[in-house]
């Protein structure tokens, strides 16, 4: 077992654990903490996959911005749900649905190459060329999307005076 493999197993375990923990803890603020750890962990996986640009982006957007957003969301709605989140427990039906989905997806593993393969390593400049060149329209679309989202969201959360 190489070091990378070991690191991957640890990171994977942490990711799973934090994800589950975030959903199962009773205190919402703890959830935010766990999810922050989750995002950081995923970022680490990106680094492991030799995608440092993504890792940084993940840290900045997810571990940073999204977490803060969620925290604000919790705080702004907190008054009314001061009591701890009622844990609904492990409902059999949703759990089995999730597990079955997992099983189905994992069945694909059987046809994937079992042996380890060499990872391609990409220079971030190449990535940026791709992002702003060939696949530039994606970002354009993202921009449009954000424009609408921002305009609408601001309108929505603004206290109406009518």
């Amino acid at each position, binding site marked *: 077992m190489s070091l990378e493999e070991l690191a991957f197993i640890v990171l994977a375990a942490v990711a799973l654990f934090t994800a589950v923990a975030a959903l199962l803890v009773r205190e919402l603020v703890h959830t935010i903490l766990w999810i922050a750890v989750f995002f950081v962990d995923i970022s680490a996986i990106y680094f492991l996959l030799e995608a440092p640009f993504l890792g940084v982006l993940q840290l900045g957007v997810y571990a940073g911005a999204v977490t803060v957003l969620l925290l604000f969301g919790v705080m702004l709605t907190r008054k009314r749900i001061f009591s701890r989140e009622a844990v609904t427990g492990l409902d059999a039906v949703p759990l089995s*649905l999730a597990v079955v989905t997992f099983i189905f997806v994992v069945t694909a593993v059987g046809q994937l190459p079992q042996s380890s393969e060499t990872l391609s390593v990409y220079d971030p400049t190449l990535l940026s060329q791709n992002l702003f060149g060939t696949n530039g329209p994606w970002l354009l679309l993202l921009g449009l999307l954000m424009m609408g989202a921002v305009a609408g969201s601001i309108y929505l959360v603004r206290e109406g005076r009518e």
Partner: protein
Amino acid sequence: MRRLEWGGWVSVAFSGAAMVVGVLIGVGEMVNPGTYTDVRYTWLHLAPAPGPFPNGFSLVVGTLVDPISALMLIVVTVVGFLVMLYSIGYMHQDRGLPRYYAELSLFLTAMSGLVLADNLLEFFVFWELVGVCSYFLIGFYYEKPSAASAAKEAFIVTRVGDIMFLLGIFLYFYNFALAGPAGSGGWAANGFLFVNGNQPYLLGHGLGGNSTLLTVAGIMILGGAAGKSAQFPLHVWLPDAMEGPTTVSALIHAATMVAAGVYLLAVASLFLGFTSTDQLAIVGIGGFTAFFAATMAVVHPDIKRVIAYSTISQLGYMVMAVGAGFAMVGLFHLFTHAFFKALLFLAAGSVIHAVGTQDLFKMGGLRKTMRLTAIAFAVGGLALAGIPPFAGFWSKDDILSAVYSQLGSHPAYWPFFLLAFAAVFLTAYYIFRAWFLAFSGDHPRDPSLGHAHEGPWTMQVPLVLLSALACGAGLLIFVPGFQSLLLSGAGATGIPPVYGTTDLLISAASVALGVSGIALAWVLWGNGRVYALPETSAAQPVRRLLLKRYYFKIGYDWIGAKGVYTIARAADFFDRFVIDGTVHGFERAFALVSNRLRRIQSGVVSDYAAYVVAGLIALFVILLIVAPYVVSRLGGG
């Protein structure tokens, strides 16, 4: 009132003209026998085409005069005119006079059309029209429920016969279509039903066809005749048809329409041919009916119904004659019977007109006030009873002799011949029982009947004329022209008519029976008094059976009203609750499913998400397992 009567006179005038023409045609046939056809209108033409009629065919309408139709035409027009005339007096108080004359005129038209029809289809058309006129006229007093009911009964019962007749037409058609062109002869020569262009190819004597089919065809024709001529077992309607005006009974239900059945049988036997089985069936029905109807007449208290039963019985004789192969003999009896039976009816009508009731037991002693009527009735009675030289004697004895002559060829004729023979006695008895009950004695048994008197001259003239005919019509048989008329009419059958050559033994016996019948009637009823049959008498059940008409009417009513309507109601139930219920069941099932399915729309978004994930898993199952299997079964697309 005057305006109404004026309309009646129009009808009388026209029917008089018709009588003149009819009699002229008859005389013409006597002078110059033969077959004459006239205008033909193509009613429906099927051009040659592939299929069952490679040459195509036409249904035509036209007129045809031959000896037998001439004979019949005389009867129809003469009796028709006399009844029309009589009706002026008889019906003068009725508000429905215009309707009466219109319907009666329509009837005469249809009847003449029937007689002059040149093919069976046209025959059938007029046959039906005659039936519907009868329906209207029986129901003339439609406010009376019994009249409306009787009209309906008559229509339905005769329709049963009509249906058989129609099937008979089809059978003959099929038979002759197989037989192909052959032979010649009056009706047949002019295209019995279907002609190809003007070239007849479906003809009489077409015995080359399937004999079973022919037998069935004959039975079907018999069925049709039985319906119109009220033969057993379709006889029930005729007595009830007496709900109509008496004049109608005289014309339609004695002289003409009911005779159309016999006429049909005669035509069929002359031009289409019956197998021996058919003949036996016809003789059987006729002979049995002759006796059977006579028994019922014996006890009946209603003067018209007695005569009606007598009509059925006499028609039985005619049918029997035709069945035995002596169509012209049957028609001869038809000829004479028309006059004396019309006479009897008109005389009875005269009585009813005078006393206002039909119940014999309320009448009595009318001969003093209604001498003419009494004489006329007696003449009619004597003719009916077969007392020489009155008309009935000649024709009835012809029939008996004719059938007697055929007994050798068909042993099974014996019982029917004997029944018919016995009926002669009953005939004489019941008609004179009626005469004695009505006319003998000192005064009406029901004092409320008041003072009876004769009708106006319009009623008396027909009585006189018909009396003369009832006396003399039988003697026509000795007139050469008339003889040749009958002979040429029978020419096609191969069996010679036996008129005028009555077997003396048979004649003597029947006259003896007739006289003894009259004698018995005189002994029992001659003094004008009525004896009640003791309740305990052994004859009581018999009397009840006869009065109840052997329960036929009740039985038919039961089948019709109870049986059929029960089925109909059951069917209605089935239709509403099972068939429509199934439809509603579908509706309800959909509603149920819809209601159940609606509950998945719980309003909780988590559930919706669960549906999405469940759907996703279902998609996986389909994509990975089900669909590949289906595709491999379908063979790759």
